[in-house]
């Protein structure tokens, strides 16, 4: 059959209408009490890596909760997830949240929600009074939002500072000067601001900055600047992409005179080895480099080891990194909130968020928190600390900080 303008139009309309109708097909079969939870994830766009890794783990845990009887305090109500994609754009996070709340009538909201998305979402949450759990935001400006993300100040900046001080004072590394090497974007700038203050207060002299242009195709100029300043340590928050370019530049310049201490993806993402290749990876990742992370397969945390095994062996997930663990944790937090809330009204859900408590040693605590998981008054995690790891030539991670989770002491300077 020849395709003319009319048949093309009819075909395109069919595809369009069919696709629009698809999500509604099958919904008719749902029965019993359900709790609708809206999930605004960044499934496409620049931040998709977070949710593409995390969403399968989140869905697995929710399915497991439902299979084990649902939310028992609510008569065994099943959790029904209503998914949305914000395409990694903050304005669209707000629009999708508005849709889920007003059109889909969800009773709770969660999702990737990084810091910029959190800011865009704030007026919508305040207006519609929707209790929300962000998986990744470094702050919470709305009274209705709680977050599992690392606080910029007492999370990222404090952990990096504490580790550098531990290297200097306990492990006797010579650390007197620092260059702030960070990805020049929202979170990188915020962490840098706090980290600079903390390092100065710890007696480390800041001798320069090497802000990494997040659009750059090459970070050689930043590495040349670092080499010219020759600091004892380079510290900051670096994205995976900037990390790859920075480590590549370091390899090309064969520079090993500084320690590189930073977080998170640019230093510890499992994809670094794949993108850099084994030769470059071995030359730079295993020498004078320590990365901050909230998750490491080698951490001495029983519940973390168990969930890794479960996601790998039972859920059959092929990517189990920090994103998967963080989302799995979010599912458990939501479960506790729903169990403990007196009702599904906004005020009761908020009260339940405030009283969340998953102590250290609890099988449902998947992230490494020596003091357990609770929310502080500012709706951020009370214990915002993370771990530091070092890479081995076998491409494995060894936890070196804090002591509670450490497998080995930090490798001496090469």
């Amino acid at each position, binding site marked *: 059959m020849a395709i003319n*303008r009319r048949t*093309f*139009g009819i075909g*395109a309309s069919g*595809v*369009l209408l069919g*696709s*629009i109708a*698809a*999500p509604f097909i099958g919904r008719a079969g749902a029965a019993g009490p359900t709790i609708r939870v809206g999930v605004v994830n960044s*499934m*496409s766009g620049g931040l*998709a890596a977070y949710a*593409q890794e995390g969403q399968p783990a989140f869905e697995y845990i929710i399915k497991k909760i439902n299979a084990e009887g649902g939310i028992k305090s609510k008569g065994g109500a099943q959790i029904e997830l*209503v*998914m*949305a*994609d*914000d*395409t990694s*754009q*903050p*304005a*669209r996070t*707000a*629009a*999708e949240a*508005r*849709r889920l709340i*007003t*059109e889909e009538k969800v009773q709770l909201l969660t999702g990737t929600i990084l*810091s*910029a998305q959190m*800011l*865009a979402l*704030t*007026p919508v949450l*305040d*207006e*519609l009074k929707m209790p929300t759990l962000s998986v990744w935001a470094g702050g919470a*400006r709305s009274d209705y939002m709680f977050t599992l993300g690392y606080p910029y100040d007492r999370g990222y900046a404090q952990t990096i500072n504490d580790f550098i001080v531990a290297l200097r004072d306990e492990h006797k590394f010579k650390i007197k000067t620092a260059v702030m090497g960070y990805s*020049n*974007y*929202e979170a*990188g*700038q*915020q962490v840098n601001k706090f980290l600079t203050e903390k390092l100065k207060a710890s007696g480390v002299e800041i001798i320069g900055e090497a*802000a990494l242009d997040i659009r750059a195709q090459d970070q050689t100029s930043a590495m040349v600047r670092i080499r010219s300043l020759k600091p004892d340590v380079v510290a900051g928050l670096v994205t995976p992409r900037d990390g790859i370019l920075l480590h590549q530049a370091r390899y090309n310049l064969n520079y090993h005179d500084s320690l590189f201490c930073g977080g998170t993806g640019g230093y510890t993402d499992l994809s670094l080895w794949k993108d850099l290749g084994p030769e470059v990876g071995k030359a730079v990742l295993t020498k004078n480099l320590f990365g901050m992370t909230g998750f490491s397969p080698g951490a001495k945390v029983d519940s973390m080891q168990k969930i890794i095994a479960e996601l790998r062996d039972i859920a059959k997930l092929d990517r189990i990194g920090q994103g998967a663990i963080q989302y799995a944790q979010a599912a458990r937090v939501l479960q506790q909130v729903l169990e403990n809330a007196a009702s599904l009204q906004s005020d009761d859900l908020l009260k339940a968020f405030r009283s969340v408590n998953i102590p250290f040693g609890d099988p449902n605590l998947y992230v490494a928190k020596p003091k357990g998981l609770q929310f502080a008054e500012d709706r951020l995690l009370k214990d915002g600390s993370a771990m530091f790891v070092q890479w081995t030539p076998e491409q494995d991670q060894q936890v070196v900080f804090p002591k509670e989770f450490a497998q080995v002491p930090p490798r001496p300077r090469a």
Partner: protein
Amino acid sequence: MKQEFYDTLSSPILWGVLLLAALLPFALSSYYLHIVTLALVYVALASSWNIVGGMAGQVSLAHSLFIGIGAMLSSALLLKLGINMWLGLVISAVISGVLGAMIAWIDFRFQLGHLSFVLITLAFAEMGAIVVEGWEFLGGASGMLLPKDTGDFLAFQFGGGSGSFWVMLTLAAVCVLVNVAILNAPLGFYLRTIRDNEKAAQAIGVNVLRYKITAMVISAVLASVVGTAYVRYLTFADPYLLISPVITIEIVLFATVGGLGRAYGPALGALLLVPLGEVLRGKLGSALPGLHYFIYGVVVIAVILATPRGLLPLFERQWERWRRS
């Protein structure tokens, strides 16, 4: 000014449509009202761009700079210096107008070809984005969160949902009417002459520099004002949205699909494509990552293939055919 403009202004159809549109907040839910408000933002932006890109034929990619100045500078003036946002709107519009005039002058002075003009304006847009993302005063890469909109009109607050919708409806109507006015004024004829053959226009005595600057200044000022109103609506001044060249690409797309150089073409494009994009994402966003983008792309390609000069000329032809029959 041709009589047609005054006829349009006094047309009961125009006022009837505006009145009906103004009643939408009473009929739509919060989400659909948001979609319509967003569509109106893009109607205003695409119409302001049309003055330069459609009528004068200069494909400017600098409009994100003007939108960004309107949004980020007025927000920074409010948050950092306590300057009322109404005054911030005026300051931003003046700066945008001056920058617009400068770009038009550069274009004329160096006799830039079409491609060079596109690249120069893109460079201005990128420079603007880099300055905003790297300068703490303008919010840096983190952006800025404006105070809650309590509806205090004197503080440039419109009360969120309905109030913001009416502001955007007014701005969209103003931008479209400015298009109608220019098309029916000597400026419109000069711009079209410049678009069709700049050298010939110069040869017959058209002051090319003057009219290019005029068009760019009007366009830049309108885009800047819409930028200020848009950021007030969003409450969050997001540099990656408001001063990103991507927003200009969207505007160009809407204007092209609707009908370049026509008074109502860009508005039609925005009114169709913005809701389509939003609804597709809402319905398909969870089905398969990126599927909504794919379908949106297919629809846009289909429209452009079916009617390369835009939807408005197609609708006009259909209307004529229907009237004759």
